[in-house]
C-alpha cells in the first residue's frame, strides 16, 4: 500500500459541480410540481435545468472567507467614521439629502430583494440557479444592513432619516420605488429574475447604484462610499446571474421569447421611471457633481446597454420600443422632477432648493438644448421669489400615474410645454398613466395595476390621517395631518434647505471642528 499517492486534484468547475449540482434529486414520494409549485404558471418552459451555466462558482467556504474579509474592513471604517465625526467631512450639508433619498428609497428595496431572491432560491427546480439566487439573497440582506449601519451615524445628527421604513410605506414619492419591488415580488419567479435580476441589477445598476456611490465619493461621504466599494464585487456577481438567467430562458424554448420580451419592455420602462429620482439627484442634489444625468444615460444606457441588446439580438430580443422616447427625455426628466419636488418640498422628507448661478451655468452647459430654453427662467423666478420671502410651495396634490406612481409631471413627446396624460378604461373605471410606456403596461395587466395604492388618492379618501383625526373639525389642516401620519418632524425634515436645522447644525459643528472660537 502506497500511503503517499495523493488523489488527483479536481478542477474548479468539476469541484463546484460536485458541491452543488449533485445535491438535488427528482422527488418521487411527492410530485415535483408540488415541491416546486411556482415553476410553470408564468408560461416559461424549461426542459433541462442541467443546461444552466453557473455564472460564478462560489462554495460556502470561499463565500464566507471573502465576505468576512470585506465585512471586517467595512465595519472598521464605519467605526472610525463615527468616532471622528466623519459626517463633517462632506462637501456641504445639501449633499445629505441625496443620502436621505437613498436610505428611504433604496435601502428598504435591498431588503425586499433579499426576500424575493430567497423565494427564487426556493422555487426554481434547478439546483444551479437556486444556489446562485440564495447567494444573492444573503448578499442583499448584507446590503440593506450595511447601508443602514453606514447611514445610522448621519441619522444621529441630521433630519429626514429617522423613520425610513414607516415612510417608505406611506410617503407619496416613496411609493415609486416601493411599488416597483412589490410589483416584481408579486409576480412569479421568472418575471422576478427579469425584473430584478436582469433589468434592475444588470441593465440599470450603473444608473442607480453607481451614481449614488460615485456621488458619495465626490462629496466626501466616507461611510457610504466605503459601503459602495465593499458591495462592488457582490454587484458584479449579481449582474452575471441576471444575464445568465435571461440567456438560459431564451435558450430553453423558443416559446419563451415573447414572454421574456414583454417583461424586458415592461421592466426597462418601469426602471427608467424610477431612475427619474436618480437623475434629479445627480443634476441637483450633489453639491459636487459626478456627471450629468444625460451623460450617464448616454454612457451607461445608450452605449453599454446598446452593446448588451446587440448581444441579445441573436436570441431575437429587440430593444424595447418605449426606449426611443428616452433619447428625448434624457434632456428633460431631471429638471422636471426637481421642479416638482421643489414645489412639493413641504411634503418631502428631504430639503429642496433652487440652484445658484454657478450651478445653473453648469446645467446650461450640460443641457444646451433644453435648460435655458425651458427651465432656467422658471427656476430663476422661484429663486428670486424665495429671496424676497415668497418661497413657493404648492398646497394641492398632484395626480399620480397608475403604474409608476410618479406625479403627472413628464411632458408630451415633441412638446416639452405640455403635460403628458394617457387614459385607459377597465371595468367601467378610468385610469390615468403618465406615458405610452406606462399605459402599455397598464393595458397589459389592468387587473394588477388597478390595485395600486396611490398615495394621493388615499389622502383624498381620508386614509392618511392619524387615528382619531376629525377632518370636519374647525381649522383642520389636511397637509399637517398627513405629515403627522408620515411621522415627519414638520419644519425639520421638510421645506427648503435655506433656513433648515441641517444647514445650521452643519455650519455650527463644522465651525467647532475647524475653528478655535
Amino acid at each position, binding site marked *: *500500500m502506497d*500511503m503517499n*499517492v495523493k488523489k488527483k486534484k479536481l478542477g474548479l468547475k*468539476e469541484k463546484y459541480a*460536485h*458541491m*452543488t449540482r*449533485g*445535491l438535488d*434529486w427528482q422527488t418521487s*414520494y*411527492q410530485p415535483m410540481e408540488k*415541491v416546486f409549485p411556482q415553476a410553470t404558471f408564468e408560461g416559461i418552459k424549461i426542459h433541462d435545468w442541467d443546461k444552466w451555466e453557473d455564472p460564478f462558482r462560489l462554495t*460556502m*467556504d470561499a463565500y*464566507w*472567507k471573502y465576505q*468576512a474579509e470585506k465585512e*471586517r474592513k*467595512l465595519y472598521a471604517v464605519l467605526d472610525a467614521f463615527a*468616532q471622528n465625526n466623519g459626517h463633517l467631512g462632506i462637501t456641504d450639508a445639501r449633499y445629505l439629502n441625496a443620502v436621505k433619498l437613498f436610505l428611504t428609497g433604496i435601502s*428598504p428595496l435591498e*431588503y425586499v430583494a*433579499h*426576500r424575493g431572491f*430567497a*423565494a427564487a*432560491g*426556493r422555487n426554481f427546480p434547478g*439546483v444551479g440557479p*437556486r444556489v446562485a439566487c*440564495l447567494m444573492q*439573497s*444573503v448578499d442583499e*440582506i*448584507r446590503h440593506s*444592513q*450595511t447601508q*443602514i*449601519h453606514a447611514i445610522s451615524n448621519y*441619522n444621529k*445628527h441630521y433630519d429626514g432619516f429617522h*423613520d425610513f421604513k*414607516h415612510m417608505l*410605506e*406611506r410617503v407619496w414619492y416613496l*411609493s415609486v420605488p*416601493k*411599488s416597483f419591488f*412589490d*410589483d416584481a415580488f*408579486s*409576480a412569479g419567479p421568472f418575471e422576478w429574475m427579469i425584473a430584478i435580476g436582469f433589468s434592475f441589477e444588470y441593465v440599470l445598476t450603473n444608473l442607480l447604484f453607481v451614481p449614488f456611490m460615485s456621488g458619495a465619493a465626490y462629496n466626501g461621504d466616507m461611510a457610504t462610499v466605503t459601503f459602495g466599494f465593499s458591495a462592488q464585487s457582490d454587484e458584479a456577481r449579481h449582474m452575471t446571474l441576471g444575464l445568465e438567467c435571461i440567456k438560459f430562458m431564451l435558450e430553453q424554448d423558443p416559446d419563451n421569447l415573447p414572454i421574456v420580451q414583454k417583461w424586458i419592455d415592461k421592466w426597462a420602462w418601469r426602471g427608467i421611471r424610477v431612475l427619474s429620482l436618480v437623475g434629479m439627484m445627480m443634476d441637483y442634489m450633489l453639491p459636487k457633481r459626478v456627471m450629468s444625468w444625460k451623460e450617464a444615460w448616454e454612457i451607461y444606457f445608450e452605449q453599454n446597454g446598446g452593446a448588451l441588446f446587440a448581444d441579445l439580438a441573436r436570441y431575437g430580443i429587440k430593444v424595447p420600443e418605449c426606449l426611443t422616447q428616452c433619447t428625448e427625455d434624457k434632456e428633460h426628466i431631471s429638471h422636471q422632477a426637481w421642479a416638482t419636488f421643489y414645489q412639493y418640498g413641504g411634503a418631502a422628507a428631504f430639503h429642496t432648493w433652487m440652484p445658484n448661478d454657478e450651478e445653473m451655468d453648469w446645467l446650461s452647459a450640460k443641457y444646451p438644448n433644453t435648460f435655458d430654453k425651458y427651465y432656467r427662467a422658471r427656476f430663476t423666478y422661484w429663486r428670486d421669489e424665495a429671496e424676497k420671502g415668497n418661497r413657493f410651495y404648492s398646497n394641492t396634490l398632484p395626480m399620480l400615474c397608475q403604474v409608476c406612481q410618479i406625479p403627472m409631471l413628464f411632458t408630451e413627446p415633441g412638446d416639452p410645454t405640455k403635460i403628458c396624460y394617457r387614459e385607459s378604461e377597465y371595468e367601467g373605471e378610468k385610469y390615468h398613466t403618465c406615458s405610452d410606456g406606462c399605459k402599455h403596461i397598464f393595458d397589459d395587466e389592468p387587473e*394588477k395595476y388597478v*390595485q*395600486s*395604492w396611490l398615495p394621493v388618492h388615499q389622502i383624498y379618501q381620508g386614509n392618511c390621517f392619524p387615528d382619531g383625526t376629525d377632518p370636519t373639525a374647525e381649522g383642520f389642516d389636511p397637509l399637517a395631518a398627513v405629515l403627522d401620519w408620515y*411621522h415627519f418632524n414638520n419644519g425639520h425634515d421638510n421645506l427648503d434647505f435655506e433656513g433648515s436645522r441641517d444647514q445650521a447644525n452643519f455650519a455650527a*459643528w463644522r465651525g*467647532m471642528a475647524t475653528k478655535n472660537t
Partner: protein
Amino acid sequence: MEIDLRTVAIKPLRHTFDHIARRFGDKPASRYQEGTYDIQQTDIFHYRPMWEPELQLFDKRRTKVQMKDWYALKDPRQFYYGAWTIARSRQQDAAESSFDMIEERGLADIVPEEIKQTALAVLVPLRHVEWGGNMGNSYISAYGYGTAITQPCLYHAMDHLAVAQYLTRIGLVLEGPEALDTAKDAWMEAAMWQPMRQHVENVLVVQDWFEIFVAQNLVLEGLTYPLIYDYLDGDFSANGGTVISMMTRFMGEWSTETAKWVDAQIKVAAAESAENKTLINDWVKQYRPLVLAALAPIAQRAFGEQAETVLAEVTAQFNARCTKAGLTV
C-alpha cells in the same frame, strides 16, 4: 495608567432610528437591532401576489402560530450578516486546516476500512438531507414573518448548504467522486434511505412555515445531529477514525450553537399562548416518530446491535430539550 485623547464632542439629535427607539428608547442601538427590528414591511402592499392572491406579500397568515410581536422571536446569537459571516469564516478556517492536513498527508488512508465504509454509507448520503434543510429554511426566509426569524433562517439555509458541501468533501477525501454517485444511488434506491427520503420530501411540501421550522430545525436536526455528530462521531474517534471527526468538527460545533437559537424560538412562541403551545406540541408529536422511523435503518447501519439503545438515548435527550423549551411532548 490612562491616557486621555481629546476629541471634538458633538451632541447628537437622536441616538437611533425611531422604530428602534419606539422599542428600546432613544439610546445607542446595537448593529443587530438596527439591522433587524422592523425592517420588513408590514403595511400597505400594492398588489396581491400572483402566486397566492388571497394573501399579502408578507402576511401573518402563512402560519397557524400567532404572535402579538413577531420580533419577540429574536436571535440569542444576535446574528446580522456581518456577525454571521465573520463567525462562520472563523469556523471555516479551522475546518479548512483540518481538510488541508488530511489531504496533504494522505490521512484518509489510515482510516480503518470498516470505519471508512460506515462513513461513506452514512455520512455522504446525508448531504441530500442537508439540501432539504436548505430548502425548508429558504422557504421560511421568503415567506415567514418578521426579520427576527426570517433572517437567521436564511443564514441557517446557507449553513445547511455548507454542511452538504463538507459532507461532499468527506466523500471526495475518503474515496473520490464515485463516493458521491454511490451515495446518490443509495439515497434514491437503497432501502436504508427510503424512509428518510420520503420524510424529507414530505416536509418539502408543507405550507405552514412555522411547521417547517419545527419539523426541520427542531425535530429532524434535533434527532439527527446528536445521533451522527455526537454518537457516531464518538464511535469513529474511539475506533481509529479521528480523521473523520476532524472533518465533521464544523457540524458538531454548529449544531450546538444553532440548537440554542432554535430552542429560543420554540420557547418564546410556545410561551406566547396556549394555542401556539398546542400547535408546536402536536407538531413535535407528529414528526418525532416519523424521524425516528426514518433514522432507524441508518442507526442500524451505524451502530448495529446498539442502534435501539442509541436511538433511545438520543430521543430521551431530545425530549428533555423540548421540556426545557416549555413543550409537553
